[in-house]
């Protein structure tokens, strides 16, 4: 057998189930790997070694008793630090939640545990999932395993880097405007944003409630599908979760893509997208066609408004979602300031980073008297137009194929002083959040030693077709088998 940290999630699960290796061995091998590479990568904000080993032992004990063990038995996982874990610090990459230990588990955290997965730690991210480089974390940036001078993308940069660096076999991220797909692309792994409502948000610390969605990150499409299968489904604790047709990983890996109709929207391949990225995406479309799919260029006229729409809607919701950080029930309380209001202001001043403050300010402004109609309401109407464009496209096509990110990973610090340039990194991923549809990023090439991501978007609740296309492409190419060296 290969070194355990080189195995896929699926292979580890099968080996634990068959008894070829113990869950403890798997957990220990990955904890060792964390010790080895974490000083270079900084993907994890907390490593829960003791809990992990205890849980691995519980899986092994269940197996030796002959009890039924779950579909993710012994699989080592990291959760983005915006996902609440009972008794384990959940900071959202923010100073304001330093050391906060939730008294409850997010639904996804409970579901992966029930499935037998072993959580090794909490992954770094941009503060409250606001950013595209993980540089907005109050706890320092995470580095890209392919090039330590580069960002891993964001906001789920820790989740992506930990998977790429083989610290864990899979992870969960959250995606509001591309925060799973863009770091997956920049780290050369698979990242899926499911349809809004497919996965429960209960216990996901809210950034923009109508856009946030938790999704899997892994080194293969099948692994991502297995994670999705474990976490998806209706949750009575989340009114926005949907009782959709069940999703199974086996449906993804069965069958082929003959006759699949691919739309290639030209708006995603225009100015601002690097040449090697465009070339890689076009080559990927050809590869898909070689397997029996048909492809056609198309146009989504309103998607160019996604960025503006997103940066009104998401900050507006965020300004409200982040009002609860007032220094009363949890989190940071700063000294100074007079009275309760002064305390709250001082705590928020000390606890939030610049980007978070900016989004709170923009969102508060967009909702304030006299501006609501011009900004928030108008943006919601434009969102309707964007959705209609996608609906029309999906009458002609089964999936839409685009780049995930206009560029490969950029240098740490390169865009820190230019918030707008940073925001443009999400220009290809934002539209899927506007429309609520699923989107997956898979590796499709390399440029200057850094991975390029291919984005495939599908119809609402049709993760199956979306991932089947991704799986077919993956099986026909070698990109997902490349491994970063992680030089210290």
């Amino acid at each position, binding site marked *: 057998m290969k070194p355990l940290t080189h195995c896929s999630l699926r292979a580890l699960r099968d080996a634990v189930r068959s008894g070829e290796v113990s869950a403890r061995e798997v957990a220990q091998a990955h904890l060792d790997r964390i010790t080895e590479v974490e000083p270079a990568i900084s993907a994890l904000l907390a490593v829960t070694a003791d809990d992990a080993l205890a849980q691995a032992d519980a899986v092994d004990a269940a197996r030796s008793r002959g009890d039924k063990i779950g579909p993710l038995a012994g699989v080592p996982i990291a959760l983005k630090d*915006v*996902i*609440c874990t009972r008794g384990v610090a*959940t900071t*959202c990459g923010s100073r304001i*939640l330093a050391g*906060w230990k*939730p*008294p*409850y588990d*997010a639904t996804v955290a409970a579901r992966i545990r029930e499935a037998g997965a072993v959580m090794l730690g909490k992954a770094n991210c941009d503060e409250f999932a606001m950013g595209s480089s993980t540089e907005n974390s109050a706890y320092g940036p995470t580095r890209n395993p392919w090039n330590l001078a580069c960002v891993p993308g964001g906001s789920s940069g820790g989740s992506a880097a930990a998977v790429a660096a083989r610290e864990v076999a899979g992870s969960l991220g959250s995606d509001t405007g591309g925060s799973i797909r863009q770091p997956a692309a920049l780290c050369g792994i698979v990242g899926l944003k499911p349809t809004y409502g497919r996965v429960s*948000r*209960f*216990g*996901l*610390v*809210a950034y*923009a*409630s*109508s856009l946030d969605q938790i999704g899997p990150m892994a080194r293969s499409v099948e692994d991502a599908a297995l994670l999705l299968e474990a976490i998806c489904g209706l949750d*009575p*604790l*989340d*009114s*926005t979760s949907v009782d959709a047709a069940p999703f199974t990983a086996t449906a993804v890996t069965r069958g082929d893509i003959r006759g699949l109709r691919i739309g290639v929207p030209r708006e995603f391949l225009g100015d601002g997208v690097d040449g090697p990225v465009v070339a890689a995406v076009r080559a990927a479309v050809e590869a898909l066609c070689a397997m029996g799919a048909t492809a056609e260029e198309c146009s989504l006229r309103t998607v160019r408004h996604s960025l503006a729409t997103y940066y009104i809607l998401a900050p*507006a*919701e965020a*300004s*409200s979602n*982040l*009002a*609860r950080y*007032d220094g*009363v*029930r*949890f989190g940071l309380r700063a000294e100074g300031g007079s009275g*309760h*209001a002064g305390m*709250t202001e001082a705590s928020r001043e000390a606890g939030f980073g610049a980007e978070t403050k900016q989004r709170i300010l923009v969102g*508060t402004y967009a*909702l*304030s*008297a006299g501006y*609501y109609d011009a900004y*928030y309401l108008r943006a919601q109407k434009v969102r309707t137009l964007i959705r209609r464009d996608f609906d029309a496209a999906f009458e002609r096509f089964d999936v839409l194929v685009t780049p995930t990110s206009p560029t490969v990973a950029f240098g740490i610090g390169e865009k820190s002083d230019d918030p707008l340039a940073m925001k443009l990194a999400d220009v290809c991923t934002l539209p899927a959040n506007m429309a609520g549809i699923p989107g997956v990023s898979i590796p499709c090439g390399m440029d200057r030693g850094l991975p390029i991501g291919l984005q495939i978007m599908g119809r609402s609740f049709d993760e199956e077709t979306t991932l089947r296309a991704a799986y077919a492409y993956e099986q026909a190419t070698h990109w997902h088998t490349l491994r970063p060296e992680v030089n210290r």
Partner: protein
Amino acid sequence: MPGTQTETPYVGSIGMEVHAELLTESKMFCGCRNAFGGKPNTRCCPVCLGLPGSLPVANRLAVELVIRAALALNCAISPIAKFDRKNYFYPDLPKGYQISQYDQPIGSGGWLDIEPEAGPRRVRIRRVHLEEDTGKLMHLPTGESAVDYNRSGVPLMEIVTEFPPDMSSADEARAYLVKLRAILTCIGVSDGKMEQGSLRCEPNISVRPAGSAAFGTKTEIKNLNSFRAVHRGVQHELARQSALLRRGDRVAQETRGWNEARGETVLQRVKEVEQEYRYFPEPDLRPLHIDDAWVASIRASLPELPDTARVRLVEQYGLSATEADLLTQTAAWTAYFERAAGLCGNARATANWMMGELARLLNAAGIEIEQCKAGPEALAELLAMVESSKISGKMAKGVWEAAFESGEAPAAIAARQGEQISDADALGAVLDSVIAAQPDVWSALCAGDEKKLTFMVGQIMKQTRGKANPGEVNRLLRDRMPGGAQ
């Protein structure tokens, strides 16, 4: 009262915002228990504490109770209603926003008819909507505050009257609240307990010179914990504003608190600018689609409303309007009355007894009729004993007091206290001794002075310590009088 004959008369305008906590088992958006009191922060969870990551899920019964109230208040039910976030900072508001309803409330365009002494009036209701209550603040000896979130997330209904206001006097304001409370308790939506704050009323008041079209600046009054406080508070505020204007001063837009001890309203805070609540649709909750079938099923489950009950009580039992008013003040009173009157067959006696002895004892004990140990069956039993002369009216009072205290059946109490003496031989002996002791009175009675009869009966009752059957005594006395049967 605003205005006098010698000076400019002022006209009052009174609008009313009423908040009622709904009678559910659990809170609005989580499974914590909806109850009053208890140790602080013992009915809290991630949702009602507003912990990061928590999400609300709306309580079906709370939605239905608001539809129920809106129907009882003659409102139109919105086919599509939604929740919105009302954003503001305050330590009793855990999320930094209150989930409420802004532009699509559940009910709108209703009314409620009141009949204060000045005459009947229809008060229009602008909207009825659903929201969540806040936590409670307590003051620490250090000057700091302590927050208890047990009340946070309790389902709360807001009922707002239409503008321009239909009410102009303290009498009307009180009548509105009395009627509203009667309806809400009758339909099982609220317990109506103003003293516990489960029913809260905030009138907004302005005055203007008679004949002027423009409304004056309004103030809002808080801390009104009883009907009496509402009446006094509104009256005081109307007078205060009129006096200000008469002096040539301005009324400031402000919130004032009612101080029960001082009998006046005092400044709480000045409203310089309208609060910016930055309402927007609550993304964590789905809209409500309230179809006709849902509304119809709720409408069908509504009990008889107080207005209907009042008319019926007058017609069916021959009660006066005032009696019917009192007996329909809450659904519990109406039910008590009808059960007791049905059992004993004497509506008049039941009404008298409830408005007299029962009301007096409830008042003295400071409890509601629902908590009364002596139920309608007990009252019916008591009244039947009086009717059949098993006990005297005087004795009945004592028996009733004992039943009210202990909950024991009146018949059992009466038996223990000794049955009435109706036996002619036993009473005959007492009669003989009283006649012998009062020869002058007896002679006057025999001579036709009928007034002396009451005195003689009284003397006999005194000798038997109230146990003599007064009817029987009357009959025996008349028998012995000249021209009697003997």
